[in-house]
């Protein structure tokens, strides 16, 4: 059995995960050694529990790495171990680098990589920002890494794809499991323009405990983590913490004080994370030159248009509020809002609520 096949086998043993593999490796050195060890040696090593030893010894005949490899070939999924050349260099440097990676598409290359993470139940403001940041990063020539979860993650990916950049999704399930299922289309797009990555074997279900695990890979692959919207207790903050441990930068998008969805990101800023007040902050902070300058359409606006535009915000504002602020009649506002939309300056994320476009 080759080294690679041993890794594949070990990775597929039931209930096996990073920490257990780590302990086994400390005791035996190589996966081949683990494979060849008798039950007695495994017991003596005291590396893992009896139940795990049972799974290890019994899976030898059942789990056939050759067959799994064939299956992966069919699905166009690659398998990379930590010892191989293709394994991303950055990831090797972190505390607990995953021993194996399953990849659909490709792995990130040497260039800059920035991750965009945040809440699943994000606001329209967060969605707008994540998308704009993803697009901006792509335009700056950086890879965008995220977790393909609902909300911010999804829009980070979408933004990167819109900016014609490369984007990578690190999943908390097997690479062949698209979770959440409504992102099926996005999943295919990411495979085409980047890759879907996971340390979990094929078919692994998206169980809760896997997500903090995968977060260390997200931060490990990135030079910088951008937190868009996060509550105080959230996976995004875990990712940010990993980033700090791993020596990556952390940037955060501020929210309003008291806004629950932004409490986490605001806290990061308070603790010293770099604040993003406009998209140019990203390029400046990362030392990346702006490829193209943002066109300034706003200068050309007529007076009424400018009044309305100046009252809009990154987070959506209802038409009633705009009427209140501008003192204009509803029927007049509708006309201006439509024209601003047609000029691509604002959008209508929710019906009758309008937000500025970045």
């Amino acid at each position: 059995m080759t080294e690679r096949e041993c890794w594949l086998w070990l990775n597929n043993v039931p209930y096996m995960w990073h920490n257990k593999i780590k302990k086994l490796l400390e005791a035996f050195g190589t996966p081949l050694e683990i494979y060849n060890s008798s039950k007695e040696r495994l017991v003596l090593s005291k590396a893992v529990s009896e139940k795990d030893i049972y799974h290890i010894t019994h899976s030898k005949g059942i789990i056939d790495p050759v067959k799994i490899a064939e299956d992966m070939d069919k699905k166009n999924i690659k398998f990379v171990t930590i010892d191989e050349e293709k394994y991303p260099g950055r990831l090797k440097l972190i505390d607990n680098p995953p021993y194996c990676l399953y990849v659909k598409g490709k792995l990130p290359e040497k260039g800059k990589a920035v991750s965009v993470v945040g809440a699943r139940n994000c606001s329209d403001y967060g969605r707008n920002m994540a998308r704009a940041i993803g697009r901006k990063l792509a335009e700056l020539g950086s890879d965008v890494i995220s977790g393909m979860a609902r909300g911010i993650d999804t829009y980070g990916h979408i933004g990167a794809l819109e900016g014609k950049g490369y984007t990578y999704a690190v999943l908390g399930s097997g690479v062949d499991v698209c979770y959440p299922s409504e992102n099926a289309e996005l999943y295919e797009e990411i495979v085409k323009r980047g890759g879907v990555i996971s340390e979990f074997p094929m078919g692994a279900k998206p169980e809760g405990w896997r997500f903090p695990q995968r977060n260390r890979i997200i931060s490990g692959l990135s030079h910088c983590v951008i937190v868009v919207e996060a509550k105080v207790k959230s996976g995004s903050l875990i990712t940010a913490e990993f980033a700090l441990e791993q020596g990556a930068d952390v940037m955060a998008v501020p929210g309003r004080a008291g806004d629950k969805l932004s409490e986490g990101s605001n806290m990061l800023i308070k603790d010293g994370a770099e604040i993003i007040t406009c998209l140019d902050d990203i390029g400046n902070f990362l030392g990346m030159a702006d490829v193209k300058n943002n066109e300034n359409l706003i200068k050309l606006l007529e007076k009424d248009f400018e009044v309305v535009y100046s009252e809009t915000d990154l987070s959506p504002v209802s038409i009633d509020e705009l009427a209140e602020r501008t003192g204009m009649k509803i029927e007049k506002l509708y006309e201006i809002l439509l024209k601003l939309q047609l000029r691509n300056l604002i959008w209508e994320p929710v019906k009758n609520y309008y937000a500025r476009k970045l």
Partner: protein
Amino acid sequence: MLFVTVETDVCEGLPSIDMVGLLNSEVREARERVRTAVRNTGIIIPPKRITINLSPADIRKEGGFFDLPIAVGILCALGKIKSIYNMEETVIVGELSLDGTIKGVRGVLAMALCAMEQGYKNIIVPWDNVYEACAVRQHKCGKDINVIGVRRLQEAVDILNGNREPEGIIIMENKDGVEKESQKEDFGDMCGQENLKRASLVAAAGRHNILFVGPPGSGKTMAALRIPSILSKPDIDECIEITKIHSAAGQLKERGIIRKRPFRNPHHTITGVAMAGGGSRVTPGEITLAHRGVLFLDELAEFRRETLEILRQPLESGRVVIVRNSGIYVFPADIMLVAATNPCRCGYYPDRNKCRCTDRDVQKYMGKISGPLMSRIDITVTSPLFRAEDFQHTGKKLSSHELRKKVEGAAVIQRERYKGTNIRFNSELNPGEINKYCYLGKNEKSIIKEIFASMEISARAYYKILKTARTIADIEGKVNIEESHIAEAVGYRSVV
């Protein structure tokens, strides 16, 4: 409608009263009521064989209003009544109480109207229904009918015998009362929520169906309740139609004719039968009771799916057809649908500080309202959460009275434009007619093109936008649709 003829025969034989003519149990029971009522009036029925026939024989007779005609029939046959009226030209309705009192029945207006149209000269009705019956005399069809109201059987006998003058009926044209009623709810009471008000005005002017979306307490129900106050006042024919339906359903609370548009507000647990009409004795449902008025469905997404789907056909054709084995019933159902819903289950989307629903939850909630129903709703409008500032809003608030003037102005324009066609309101236009009546200039065409290019707009949404834009132009008194009208209509498009 067909009038039943009561034939009575008295002959020698074993004393009994027999009734024939395909009678329902409540009609059959009339025998006992009539016998007792006649006796308690002081008239003795001699021990003879009395046969009563209700013709035509092949139609099932239902309802409690045959008591009085049967009693009068018997008394005529016994010679106790020698009528000064021609009984061939007289319609009699009424339910008898055991002591001879005549009680009100439902559907009198419809009967009186029919009797008048069919050329009957007199109608005798219970006193409770007399104002209702008199209302038909305002209906201009070139005919007239003499309405006689009676309180007791004895009174009916005396009047028919000519021993007593029918009691005079004073119809008070109680205009003040009507006005007061409709002013109870006024748009002037609403602070802020200009968007809701404006959309309500547009909807009322073109009789578009409208959907309010917003968090709890954002004024959706308040606005809906006020919509009848800005609809054009019903004309006399409409009043009679409305009254007829309510009378037939036994829901007439007013004395006389109803002079305001109905506002029906069924709870969301309503069944399909209650919505469309039906039952063993087929009665009109909510959708018919709202005829010529507003059907308001609060919490639209909470209604049962089947119940909502029932609305599809009536919203299209303005009538509801109910088929039962007893026959086919066609009820009028020309309504303006006003619906309100929360944007999501918790109600606070898109306020992410309060709303914990996922995007999928939000979509799922709104998805409960089916596409076909949404396609019949021209205007969708969102109302934001009510804020303290709205109370302090000092600007001049438009009252219902002013809004109604605008609605009526738009109605005049529409009537003028659609002269000689079946169309009354812009909302009734079909795609072919839209192309004919909604002329777009060069600028307008180009903006429509731009909208198509940058927003996801279906062909159906396009027509809805044009219809709504037409109404807005009518409100503004413009001959042609202008850019601003289109822009506003785009703001009212539905997004689900």
